[in-house]
């Protein structure tokens, strides 16, 4: 190919003058390009991060649900075991409401007279005695807790076989009444239903002896019982379906 191949002075001058600008601009554009790329990467990371957070939340929720299902399963399994050990028939109930007052201790459960629930039927849980049915409507019943001062359960101590009546103290404790001073009761001894009242079957755990006070006056000891049941954690209950309750009027 014919023609000049070498730069003229003007070309060289132009190249030398414009070259640095080109270098600078290309550096700036490269830099901005890399920043843009980083920004785009950051955006995608943010999206990915958000997605991962969502997934984590879903897994956490699923984990909580799984744990709750597992805990419910364990509770229901224990209830089933207890139900099988109790004299038939029994009925499982769920608590739907609690007494809002300071003066009484009752619960509302989702079983009523249409399920065969009647006044006076004993209510228990895996840990022990809860109370008895106070009133029923077709689909709901009110349970008088054993911690209510109006509740009374005939009991016997496990080791020394001393009889007494457990009454609620209006808080999370019972009083063991009518135990003579001559009777031997040990601290920590378990207190079980005696079966004598005709309401509760024999051998259900009520609590354990917490404190024994012997005052000079009176015939009886003052004994405080720690309930076996944690009344603040109740969820499911078992009603022992007795046909003829002694508490019927």
């Amino acid at each position, binding site marked *: 190919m014919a023609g000049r191949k070498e730069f003229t002075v003007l070309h060289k001058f132009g190249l030398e003058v414009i070259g640095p600008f080109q270098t600078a601009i290309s550096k700036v554009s490269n830099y901005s390009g890399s920043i843009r790329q980083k920004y785009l990467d950051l955006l995608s990371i943010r999206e990915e991060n958000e997605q991962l957070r969502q997934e984590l939340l879903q897994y956490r929720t699923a984990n909580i649900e799984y744990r709750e299902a597992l805990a419910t399963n364990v509770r229901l399994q224990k209830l089933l075991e207890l139900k099988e050990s109790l004299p038939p028939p029994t009925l499982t109930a769920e608590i739907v*409401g609690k*007494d*809002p*007052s*300071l*003066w009484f201790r*009752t619960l509302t459960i989702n079983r009523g007279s249409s399920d065969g629930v009647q006044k006076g039927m004993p209510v228990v849980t895996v840990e022990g005695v809860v109370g008895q049915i*106070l009133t029923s409507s077709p689909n709901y019943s009110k349970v008088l807790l054993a911690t209510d001062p*109006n509740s009374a359960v005939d009991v016997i101590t496990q080791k020394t076989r001393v009889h007494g009546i457990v009454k609620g103290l209006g808080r999370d404790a019972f009083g063991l009444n009518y135990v003579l001073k001559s009777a031997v009761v040990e601290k920590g001894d378990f207190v079980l239903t005696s079966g004598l009242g005709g309401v509760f079957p024999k051998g259900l755990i009520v609590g354990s002896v917490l404190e024994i006070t012997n005052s000079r006056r009176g015939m009886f000891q003052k004994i405080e019982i720690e309930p076996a049941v944690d009344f603040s954690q109740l969820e499911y209950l078992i009603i022992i379906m007795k046909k003829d309750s002694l508490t019927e009027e």
Partner: protein
Amino acid sequence: MFILIFLILGILLLVLQTTFLQLLPVWLGKPDLLFLLIVYIACQAGILRGALVVLLLGLLMDAFSGVFLGLYPVIYLLVFAFIKGISSQIAINEFAYQIPLAVISYILVGIGMFLFSFFLTPDSPPQWSWGIMLLQLIILAVIGTPVFGIFDNIMSFYRSSKASGRFLGTKSSNRFN
């Protein structure tokens, strides 16, 4: 309509008290919203309508709480009569009076509950705890203002609706509207 509105409100508060508020930790006490409603009705409503709502709420409370049927209607009506008696002496429509009145009435309810339970079952006397009572009184005093504010809004809504004849398509008695 007044009876229906405040009866529904009472039922909602009762449901709230027997379920959701039971989940609160023990040291936070049991906020007695229904009792505040009783006090509010006694302060704001007329004798007949107010007494009827209070009686119905007392009967409802009997179904969900307590051992002796009829105790809550009697206690609530006594509170109603007490507040009505006071209202004839002072202007208790103001919040400033309603909260101390609620606190005093709650103490009287406590004493009433204790005495009734004591005389009905002398062999199983109820337990009186000043600590728990004090906690309840503090809770009532703290939540009193916002709760009475909500009741006031509902009452204003009822009055404005009544004035415009919105309920049940009833028209205002003013023929020139």
